[in-house]
């Protein structure tokens, strides 16, 4: 067993967008507050994300970012406020429209990479061979060709996150909720993965809410960035940052424009402490 096999981070080919975005936001929350018993974690948050837009959410630890994703996904019922995903307001319907990618890849160790990625299809009742056939092109397209049969234990951290993201994509939901997807990776891999994700989203655009504590990651990948304060999380700032994702990461993060936005975001974060 060859540990940590690496596949080169290839540039994905672009394909036609799945379906047409209808008018109005893909997901929105209004006056959202949430408490766990006595502990208030979110306070009066207003956010929305358009159909093919990436909304980055940054904030210090414990500010309720992960809770925000769980609430939007319908995994939890909110204490106060309205949440709507693709027009659906009740938790069950939201659940059907969201795909959630947790911090750790949580790939099932007893399944191969392709079986992991096609999990949503299997859960809906598709047969294994059909599910594999449907998923295989994505492996090809996103630089994982040849690793379909590999077990998660044989893959490096970056590759596992890629498979986890493919699993999220294959669920075929219009809204993706990414919870610090690259948090567990080293700095170099993280940079590569950010570029890879930028390419993946260019090929398969979705509405994305990306939660991260890494300000640069948010600024590079997002179209807009929301900054939350420390617990209870309140909206401190909303920044428009589109354009960075289209360029190679090394170029994008060294422009003066980027530096200015980073200053702005960091100032907002500090203000929110």
């Amino acid at each position: 067993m060859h540990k940590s096999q690496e596949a080169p981070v290839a540039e994905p080919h672009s394909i036609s967008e799945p379906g047409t975005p209808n008018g109005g936001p893909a997901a929105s929350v209004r006056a959202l507050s949430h408490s766990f018993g006595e502990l208030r974690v979110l306070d009066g948050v207003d956010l929305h994300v358009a159909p093919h837009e990436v909304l980055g959410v940054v904030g210090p630890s414990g500010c309720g970012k992960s809770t925000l994703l769980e609430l939007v996904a319908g995994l939890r019922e909110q204490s106060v406020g309205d949440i709507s995903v693709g027009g659906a307001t009740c938790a069950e319907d939201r659940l059907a429209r969201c795909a959630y990618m947790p911090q750790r890849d949580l790939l099932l160790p007893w399944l191969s990479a392709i079986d992991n990625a096609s999990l949503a299809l299997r859960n809906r009742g598709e047969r294994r061979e059909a599910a594999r056939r449907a998923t295989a092109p994505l492996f090809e397209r996103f630089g994982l060709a040849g690793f379909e049969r590999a077990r998660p234990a044989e893959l490096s951290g970056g590759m596992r996150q890629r498979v986890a993201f493919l699993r999220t994509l294959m669920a075929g939901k219009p809204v993706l909720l990414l919870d610090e997807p690259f948090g567990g990776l080293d700095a170099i891999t993280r940079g590569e993965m950010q570029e890879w994700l930028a390419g993946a989203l260019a090929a398969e655009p979705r509405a994305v809410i990306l939660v991260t504590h890494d300000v640069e990651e948010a600024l590079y990948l997002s179209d807009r960035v929301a900054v939350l304060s420390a617990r209870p999380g309140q909206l401190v700032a909303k920044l428009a940052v589109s354009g960075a994702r289209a360029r190679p990461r090394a170029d994008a993060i060294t422009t003066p424009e980027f530096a200015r936005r980073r200053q702005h975001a960091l100032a907002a974060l500090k203000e929110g402490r």
Partner: protein
Amino acid sequence: MMLAPLAVIVLALAAWELAARWELVADALSIEPFLIPAPSDIAEALWSDRELLAEDGWVTLREILLGFGLALVAGLTFATALHLSDTLRRAFYPLLVASQTVPIIVIAPILVVWFGFGITPKLVIIALICFFPITVNALDGLRSVDPDLIKLMRTLDASRLRTFMRGEAPSALPYAFSGAKVAVAVAVIGAVFGEWSGADSGLGHLMLQSSAQLETARLFAAVVVLSAFAIGLFGLLSLLERRVAWWGR
């Protein structure tokens, strides 16, 4: 890899043989020679009594396998139920632990009074002994599943049943095997207790009989066969585990 333990066993047996044959040691410790037979005597008994040992051995093995199987089914079902229902777990988990405080030695004769000399009391005893390690380990295994995995499965359109079958059950399998391995080793003890409390066949019964007849070599031979059962069953489960639940913990 097997060399080190084998070497230890061989050395121990050799020392034992020497001590038994060398009358000086027996005299010094004032042990009657028939009380502790030499390994060569035991080996001889294993051969000359092989039909008796095989017959009784099969009786005991059947009790062990059936009792263990019963405990396995009951234990896994119970663990699943306690995992899926908070109410059940709160109600029954303390009782599960308390059930182990009742000594089997006390229960066994009562069961024989109720059910007679047949196989039933032995099955109940073995199942009671095996139930606890299987259930506790399986339950721990189910609870060890990352809650984020459950959340993930829900957003991947998995029903509760599918989440259980695809996520929780496979995660718990290595733990269940741990419990099963412990259980199978103590199952042998349970079988012997059951037979001591009332039986007309089986290796436990043979042990009592041989003890009364001062046939100590045969007695030890029966113990050797019982140990072989325990080791063999444990080994079988380990092999199965490597095939079926190779992802460990």
